[in-house]
């Protein structure tokens, strides 16, 4: 299978003169064989971006390059990409085999080869036995797989998927997630995958592009965007997040991650704690991020560790974990406990919150939401 590199430079789309751009000078480099998730809230421009890459929509400005070759002006049928639509878009007047063979017919592949490749593609999605079925006699998951086979059989330069799992029920979504990922890894097709489900993105992607308002807020590996979010928005969108506005104090030496430093921080009026962040932050007032499952809560104060004292406002039990909301001064912090841990807190209890310094990450910049 072909492995291609995709570069997007200053890609912009304005739907109408008066409107704000749906995609605003977007830049992205996708490496060969990578699966990149375009992740973001509804209306942030994911579909618009994907459609421009596919050639289904003309950009207002900017360029798209595949393997260094500019394709911005190329019509959709010359781009050689494979697209899977949210509603699958299987041709209702053709059976499964005919659907999968369509792209090969357009490329005038000889009949015998068509047959072999269709069979191979159908086997890949484990539906070899359904070749003669009408597409309307297929379940959602089966249609999804056929759509995938149809897109992959032509050995596309890029595989483009627009929320391919959103029409499936939760269980099937998990299965298909694994399946798409394993097929993608086997074929090494460079893939753009639109989703607004953060779990899907974290689970499947090599890189995640977190989009917001037509822009990429952060582009990085799943671990990067989860552990080292660049903005408040990214931290909040990927997983749950607690923020405390703090004053960064003394730099106390290098942290375990390259280029990062350990800092003393002051939570105004509540005490001094430890956190990590980029170098040179001392003296600034910035938000610090602590994920709920890394915020320890106990009912007894500890003698050795500095803690935040608060009152449990809300308790929600989900079986494996217990989520509690603790009011500390003006802030409400979320903490997640495993239900295995001793006595569980109740509403109204006094709780003591603490964290390991490496689990508190100082965001490098103030986000609009924090400043507001």
């Amino acid at each position, binding site marked *: 299978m072909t492995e291609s590199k995709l570069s997007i430079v200053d890609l912009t789309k304005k739907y109408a003169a008066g409107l704000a751009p749906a995609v605003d000078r977007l830049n992205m480099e996708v490496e060969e064989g990578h699966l990149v998730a375009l992740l973001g809230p509804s209306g942030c421009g994911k579909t618009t971006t994907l459609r421009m890459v*596919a*050639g*289904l929509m003309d950009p207002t400005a900017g360029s798209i390059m595949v393997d260094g070759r500019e394709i911005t002006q190329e*019509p*959709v*049928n*010359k*781009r*050689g*990409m*494979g*697209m899977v*639509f949210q*509603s699958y*878009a299987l*041709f*209702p*007047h053709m059976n499964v085999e005919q659907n999968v063979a*369509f*792209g090969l017919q*357009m*490329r005038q592949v000889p009949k015998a080869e068509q047959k072999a490749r269709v069979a191979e593609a159908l086997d890949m999605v484990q539906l070899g036995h359904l070749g003669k079925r009408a597409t309307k006699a297929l379940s959602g998951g089966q249609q999804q797989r056929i759509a995938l086979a*149809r*897109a992959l059989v*032509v050995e596309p330069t890029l595989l*483009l998927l627009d929320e391919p799992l959103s029409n499936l029920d939760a269980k099937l979504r998990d299965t298909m997630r694994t399946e798409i990922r394993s097929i993608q890894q086997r074929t090494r097709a460079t893939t753009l995958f639109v989703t607004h489900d953060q779990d899907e993105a974290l689970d499947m992607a090599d890189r995640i592009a977190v989009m917001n308002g037509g822009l990429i807020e952060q582009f990085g590996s799943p671990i990067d965007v989860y552990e080292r979010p660049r903005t408040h928005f990214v931290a909040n969108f990927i997983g749950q997040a607690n923020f405390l506005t703090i004053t960064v104090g003394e730099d106390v030496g290098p942290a375990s991650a390259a280029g990062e430093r350990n800092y003393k921080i002051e939570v105004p009026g509540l005490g001094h704690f430890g956190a990590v962040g980029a170098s040179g932050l001392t003296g600034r007032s910035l938000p610090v991020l602590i994920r709920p499952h890394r915020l320890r809560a106990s009912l007894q104060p500890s003698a050795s560790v500095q803690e935040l004292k608060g009152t449990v406002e809300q308790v929600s039990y989900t079986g494996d974990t217990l989520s509690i909301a603790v009011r500390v001064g003006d802030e409400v912090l979320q903490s997640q406990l495993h239900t295995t841990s001793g006595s569980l807190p109740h509403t109204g209890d006094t709780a003591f919150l603490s964290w390991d310094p490496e689990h508190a990450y100082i965001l490098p910049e103030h986000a609009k939401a924090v400043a507001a």
Partner: protein
Amino acid sequence: MTTITTENPVPGTREGLESGVLEAAANKRRKRTYLALLIPGILGLLVSFVFPLLYMVRMSFNEGAPDGVVIDTFTFQTYIKPLTDPYYWRVTLDTFRMGLTVGVLCLVVSYPIALFLVRSTSKYKGLLLAIAIAPLLTSAVVRTYGWMVILGTNGLVNTSLESMGLIGSPLKLTNNMTGVTIGLVEIFMPYAILAMISGFGRLSPQLEEAAGSLGASKFKVFMRVTLPLSLPGVFTAFLLVFVMAISTFITPRLLGGGSVQVLATEIYDQTTGLLNWPFAAALSVILLVLFGTIIAIYQRIVQKIGG
């Protein structure tokens, strides 16, 4: 030992039998309700359609005497003439040909409009649709007269073409089949457009995009996706226009100026001119049977194609 409780009664058990009986009774009740609801419709159909039809069939076996006298009898006399006289063969063939031509031409001119209307994302889509079917608000008679004015020897078409020097003498566009065809095509266009739009349900821009992304050129997309998916609408529209064309009377009479003979005009002449009702009835029965058969065959073919 564990007891197994089933939500669905097991057939053969007492419980199962009872619920089976209950269900059958409920079904029966439901069926009766449906039948009761159908009665008004059935009565209406009987009075306005079935009885007149039966009356007409019976009439066709009577004998028509001069001066409109109907002799009550049972004879096949009325059928012998239309089935043996070449004149009626020609009229029947002309009727068929007219239906076919009008149907095909109407499709050709209506298809792009219907496709445009279905695919348009314009905010004026509703207005455009209204404009496309607005001609239905005027009667076919008025529109036929309109066409007579436009197509006549001194009409718009001929005077324009003459003044542009494209033709030396006026084209003969009225009082012949050409005029009738032009008029009928226009008159039936709104019906064709509506029928097509209602049959274009399977078309979707996404399917066309999918085909495009798989390498199909615009032309290929149309041939392989748009056209096949729009066939149900096309078939329905053709059938509708064909049926209306072979049974229409006003336009062939007015635009044909007496020189276009189709079954409908012939029946009219027999009924109101020669007052030979049995003969007119026989022609009507022939029209009904012949074209009923043609339509049945057509439907079969359409179903085979998988429209």
